């Protein structure tokens, strides 16, 4: 769904953007390009500059330097035109307390010159048909976020910008929201999503930008990102009596070990769980110690973030 015939191949093109608020350099030289139909995630801890970055894309803030184009167009002097290409939803929006879901959508629809049929369509899409006549103050957090998404979708925007839409939601509401977004993806929408939930980025998005201290510290598909970090896998274990580290070093595919309790509880970084795990079991059996805990997993975005920054994503 590309609404323009402009020369830019990108739905969003951000080039070397900087933004400073008083003493804080919120965004320090970010570039990213998003093709129409792509879903991308901007992942980072609180204060990484995610919200500032997306509000510049939304045209709420102007960058101090650098350029931003939306479907090849700059914000300056084309505000109204660009606003109609954009749907925006934020974390924790609240609405007019005593307006119903329908009235709220109806109000926003009037800003876009849409009416009746589209509102019913949206209410169906966000699955709030039974809450249509409920005051927004009586909606649950998850229902409010659906309504926020509904508002963002009223005018069928080719570009959706969602700033932490699922923060604080229970897993079920989060799932429901994801399903709505995946449906939109099939229809060709473009999505910029900020989140600090790595599953969300993993589940919804084609590509991921990891932002920290206003800079992009890694970018690519999930596989690319993991590969760049050595595509490691993890075996967490605990044993009933201490084992020597040298024994672990000899395991096939061994990369490193992180001790939580030296000799007794740790995390093995290995090339392939499949080849290391049997050897680990054999080694412990031979040494006469018993494995009391064992957990295997692939490296994920949290690990990736930790290995890039030395901090965890949700810190």
């Amino acid at each position, binding site marked *: 769904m590309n609404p323009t015939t402009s020369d830019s191949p990108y739905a969003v093109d951000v080039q070397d953007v900087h933004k400073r608020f008083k003493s804080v350099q919120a965004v320090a030289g970010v570039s990213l390009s998003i093709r129409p139909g792509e879903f991308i995630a901007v992942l980072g801890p609180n204060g990484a500059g995610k919200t500032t970055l997306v509000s510049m894309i939304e045209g709420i803030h102007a960058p101090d330097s650098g350029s931003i184009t939306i479907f090849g167009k700059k914000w300056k002097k084309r505000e109204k035109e660009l606003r109609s290409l954009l749907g925006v939803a934020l974390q924790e929006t609240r609405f007019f307390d005593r307006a119903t879901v329908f009235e709220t959508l*109806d109000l926003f629809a009037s800003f876009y010159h849409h009416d009746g049929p589209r509102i019913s369509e949206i209410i169906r899409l966000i699955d709030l048909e039974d809450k249509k006549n409920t005051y927004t103050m009586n909606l649950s957090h998850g229902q409010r976020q659906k309504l926020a998404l509904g508002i963002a979708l009223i005018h069928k925007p080719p570009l959706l910008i969602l700033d932490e839409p699922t923060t604080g939601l229970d897993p079920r509401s989060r799932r429901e929201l994801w399903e709505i977004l995946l449906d939109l993806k099939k229809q060709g929408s473009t999505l910029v999503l900020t989140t600090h939930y790595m599953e969300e980025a993993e589940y919804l998005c084609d590509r991921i930008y990891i932002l920290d201290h206003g800079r992009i510290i890694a970018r690519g598909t999930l596989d690319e990102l993991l590969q760049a970090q050595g595509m490691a896998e993890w075996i967490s274990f605990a044993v009933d009596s201490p084992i020597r580290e040298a024994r672990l070093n000899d395991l096939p595919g061994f990369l490193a070990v992180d001790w939580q309790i030296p000799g007794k509880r740790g995390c093995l970084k290995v090339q392939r769980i499949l080849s290391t795990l049997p050897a680990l079991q054999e080694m412990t059996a031979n040494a006469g110690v018993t494995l009391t805990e064992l957990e295997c997993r692939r490296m994920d975005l949290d690990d990736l973030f930790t290995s890039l920054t030395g901090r965890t994503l949700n810190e």
Partner: protein
Amino acid sequence: MSRSLRKLISLQFKEFYREPEVLFWALIFPILLAWLLGISFKGSGTQPHHVGIIPPVSPELSARIEQLKNPQGDRPPFRFQRIDAPAAALGLKRGEISLYIRENPADLSLEFSFDPANVTARLDSLLLEKEFIRKESASGVRFIPLTIQGTRYIDFLIPGLLAMGIMNSALWGIGWSLVELRIKKLLRIMAASPMDKRTFLLSRFTTRLILSGVEFLLIYLFARFYFQLPIQGSLVALLLIFASGNLAFAGIAFLLASRTQSNQVASGLINAVNMPMMLLSGIFFSYRNFPGWSQPLIRLLPLTRLTDSLRAIFNEGAGVAAVLPSFLVLTALGFLFFFIGLRLFKWY
């Protein structure tokens, strides 16, 4: 009127009437307040009417007034206080007595001194005149009209309450509610849509103007029929002052809401604006009791201007020409504050 504007306004009305408490505080409470204050300062039919009497008093008059202490027919009971002339003047101002009587020792004729604009006083003087003439012996009664500021307290109070209503309606209805929308991030969401920002602000002002008009009308009608408070001046002047007062306080409200991010700060700012004005601008009691040097400063306050203009229209029969300066100043203030606010305003 654009569809967005219509929807924005109708939604605000719905928000308003769907919250019964708001209806109470905005519409019923001011009337209750007016009633309560009016009642406590009015003095009704069955209560004694107080009259001052300045010595010397002839034994004859003394005997006569003794008979008036009890009610008779539809005549209320009278209480006479012997006081000197300055105390009598003060008593009139304070509403402690409605008129005072002086007897001429030479011919025993009587002088009634009172404010002709004060309905109670006029009534009392006529009643007393009838009483004294019926028991004819002396040589008649003379009425001495006095001009004293602040006749009935309710005449003084109602325009003040109306002015205060306009101020509070704007400060809370526009100022507070804008801050709330900002905290809810609803302003940001709306700013991210192609909504026309002027339409939005216009809708806020229009809604408030209508609501404050309803409030004004209700209080006025109540005062008109319950306390017999007429509008002596020009209705056009009243409309001009009402509109410009709303404009001035909408501008102030908009300015103080332009950046505020929290409820606490918003209520602090609103109180910082309305408390001093409520006390200084003579809503409940005349600011003429404040020290002389402070009077010019007090007159600079928009609420003082609004209150004084409303009082002039209600009680002094002011026309358009008399209130035109206030109309212009209030309108200009409104626009000034609005444009400063617009420069500072944050949508997120």
